[in-house]
């Protein structure tokens, strides 16, 4: 039963995707939307059934299915195999339920777009690949899904391909994540050699725990996987692709860049946390990079003026929180924040999409304004999402997950080599500063967009098909956090009990003021935002960041320019050199030179020797042209060369 259901879970969106792609334009917009929602919806139902099955089984139970042996050879084996444990259970619930809500919303949002079939084909295919990433029990099988989500994100970011800027953004996202994919492949090869040719997650973790891999090997493998996760999750130094990726339709941003794909890196590290636990320097690196990204993203979000870009930088910053938690070993906290982040960031993106749609595609927050009066429903939704993102105490889901991260970071301690140590409190301080900045930038956005005097005109109403998902996400992002509470509050630890049922809950008592600080700082941020951008004092309103200090931060150009000079320019130079065909010129030039020289030398003596020299130089020139014959563009010549090579190879094999 379970194997069938697990396959069904992936097959439903896959089938919907095939239907959408093959329908071309024969199905109307309504039909396509229905197909896509049915596909994702049925996998949501299946994932709920599977979760019930898993939870009703033994506490350490795992549902497994091996669909077919993929490759088996001496020294290496890989299967198409899936595994549902409690970690992946949480992920499939997030992916399918949030994905379903986004699909319902998108069915209305994209209704008038001529490419809606292509859109939903890509979206449902994306969900299918994401489920492969989440469920795969073999790392090579996970890699299929990893590449698949990359492809779908490329297709969706460049969805409106008529605009050259959109396709450029899509390419950028593809290349940047591709760098990480190469690193992931390297890490997998390293692990495969260590475990004796199997990439089953269980086998890998056991092999690492048994010490089959030297400490340096563990560090290298963890580092490679970390680079892959950094690229997929747009962390420093790979953060540049995510803000540009907002070129795609808004539901895409909500699905890919908030709830699913960018969290794949976090999920991967959480899955392999036993491996990372043995690589202390890599853990420290993860934590430091996470903290830096968190601050950088928050600072950049503070000076943006495009509504969607604010949310994009906010995503980068929140993912930084998760990396910080992973680095400190609090992987449950990272997963918890991943979950609440999926709720509130999807809500924020979808609300922003609805606002932008009704405000005649105006994305600049300084031209919006006073929307509180014209869109009360959307205001409520956005404020709910914003409070959850800021982590306002007690009433929002974001508070509980952020609290869990903060309390996980405090006791962290890294013993690096050569007497260097890194302890939790500085990282904790950075996380706290990040929490303050988060509240500041998101409420800046709220105050500017919803308060004050009305900016651009608005039209229409938000249709019911779009407001139902918004309502559901509202409830989730406000109440979804109570499953795991800080120790100082009523100690309810459903999530930890779910993820790690065998572990005894340790009540490592931390200072009570930690929770108070974590609760107070967002409120302080809210207060400061009110003072700076609230209705009473419109001082900061007219300084949208044209100052020379702010401008590079606003666009993130510094990093782009660096990449341009370090990677793009040398490549262009190489291409230019190749176009000139420098080798050909060198050969021809030498020939000409020799010919000229010999003609001058032997001008007087037109004897045999002179003739010989001239003929020799002609020969050299001709030889220079000879390689050119190899690529004359004629297919039949190429076939002839291939056939010749084949004959030569056969002859060598026979005669030797």
């Amino acid at each position, binding site marked *: 039963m379970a194997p069938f259901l697990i396959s069904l879970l992936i097959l439903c969106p896959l089938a919907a995707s095939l239907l959408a792609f093959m329908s071309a334009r024969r199905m109307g917009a309504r039909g396509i939307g229905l197909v896509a929602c049915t596909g994702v919806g049925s996998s949501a139902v299946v994932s709920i059934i599977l979760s019930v099955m898993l939870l009703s089984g033994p506490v350490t139970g795992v549902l497994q299915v091996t669909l077919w042996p993929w490759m088996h050879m001496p020294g290496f084996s890989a299967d198409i195999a899936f595994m549902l444990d409690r970690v992946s259970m949480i992920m499939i619930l997030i992916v399918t339920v949030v994905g379903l809500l986004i699909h319902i919303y998108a069915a209305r949002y994209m209704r008038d777009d001529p490419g809606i079939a292509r859109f939903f084909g890509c979206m449902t295919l994306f969900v299918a690949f994401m489920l492969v990433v989440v469920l795969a029990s073999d790392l090579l099988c996970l890699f299929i899904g990893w590449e698949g989500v990359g492809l779908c994100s490329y297709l969706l970011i460049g969805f409106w391909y008529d605009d050259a800027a959109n396709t450029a953004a899509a390419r950028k996202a593809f290349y940047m994540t591709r760098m990480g994919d190469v690193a992931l492949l390297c890490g997998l090869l390293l692990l495969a050699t260590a475990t004796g040719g199997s990439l089953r997650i269980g086998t890998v973790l056991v092999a690492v725990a048994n010490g089959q891999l030297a400490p340096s090997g563990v560090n290298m493998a963890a580092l490679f996987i970390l680079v892959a996760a950094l690229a997929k999750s747009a962390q420093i130094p790979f953060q540049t692709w995510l803000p540009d990726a907002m070129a795609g339709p808004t539901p895409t941003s909500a699905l890919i860049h908030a709830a699913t794909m960018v969290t794949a890196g976090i999920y991967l590290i959480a899955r392999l946390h036993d491996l990372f636990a043995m690589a202390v320097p890599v853990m420290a690196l993860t934590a430091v990079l996470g903290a830096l990204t968190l601050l950088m993203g928050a600072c950049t979000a503070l000076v943006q003026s495009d509504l969607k870009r604010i949310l994009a930088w906010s995503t980068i910053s929140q993912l930084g929180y998760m990396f910080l938690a992973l680095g400190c070993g609090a992987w449950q906290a990272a997963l918890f924040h991943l979950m609440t982040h999926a709720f509130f960031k999807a809500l924020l993106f979808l609300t922003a999409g609805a606002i932008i749609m009704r405000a005649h595609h105006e994305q600049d927050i300084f031209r919006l304004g006073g929307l509180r009066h014209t869109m009360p429903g959307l205001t409520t939704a956005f404020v709910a999402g914003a409070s959850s993102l800021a982590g306002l105490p007690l009433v929002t889901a974001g508070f509980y997950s952020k609290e869990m991260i903060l309390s996980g970071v405090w006791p962290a301690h890294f013993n690096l080599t050569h007497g260097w140590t890194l302890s939790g409190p500085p990282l904790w301080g950075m996380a706290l500063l990040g929490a303050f900045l988060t509240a500041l930038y998101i409420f800046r956005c709220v105050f500017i967009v919803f308060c004050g005097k009305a900016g651009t005109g608005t039209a229409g109403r938000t249709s019911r098909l779009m407001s139902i998902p918004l309502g559901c996400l509202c409830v989730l992002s406000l109440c979804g956090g109570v499953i795991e509470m800080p120790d100082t509050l009523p100690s309810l630890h459903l999530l930890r009990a779910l993820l790690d049922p065998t572990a005894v809950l340790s009540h490592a008592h931390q200072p009570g003021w930690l929770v108070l600080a974590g609760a107070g700082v967002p409120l302080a941020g809210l207060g400061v935002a009110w003072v700076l951008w609230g209705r009473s004092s419109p001082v900061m309103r007219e300084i949208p960041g044209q100052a020379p200090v702010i401008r590079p931060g606003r666009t993130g150009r510094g990093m782009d320019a660096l990449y341009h000079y370090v990677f793009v320019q040398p490549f262009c130079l190489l291409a230019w050199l190749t176009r000139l065909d420098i080798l050909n010129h060198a050969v021809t030039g030498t020939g000409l030179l020799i010919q000229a020289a010999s003609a001058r030398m032997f001008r007087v003596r037109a004897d045999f020797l002179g003739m010989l020299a001239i003929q020799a130089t002609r020969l050299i020139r001709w030889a220079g042209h000879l390689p050119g014959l190899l690529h004359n563009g*004629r*297919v039949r010549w190429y076939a002839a060369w291939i056939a010749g090579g084949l004959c030569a190879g056969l002859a060598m094999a026979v005669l030797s």
Partner: protein
Amino acid sequence: MPVFSFNDTLLLATALFSVGLAGVLVRRNMVFMLMSLDIMLNATALVFVGAGARWHDATGQVMFVLILALAAVETAVGLAIIVCLHGRGRPTLDADTGNLMEG
């Protein structure tokens, strides 16, 4: 019913393959080149079937089905390219005329 040995199959396949290869090399008409390519593919498929029969292993037949699909795809793509070229106003099937890339 005559029984063919694996050796005979190999010989036939070699002959077929050579015919196909010669066709690709000699023909200038792109449709005929595609057909010759199919002959080559069929020759390899024949080897797989023969080997499957020789060692009583169904994998050879599986490979044959795979090659069949591959051949169909390759022909479809090739014909699509030819039709596209015609659409662009190149009313010729001569493979030798298309030796320049014009982005």
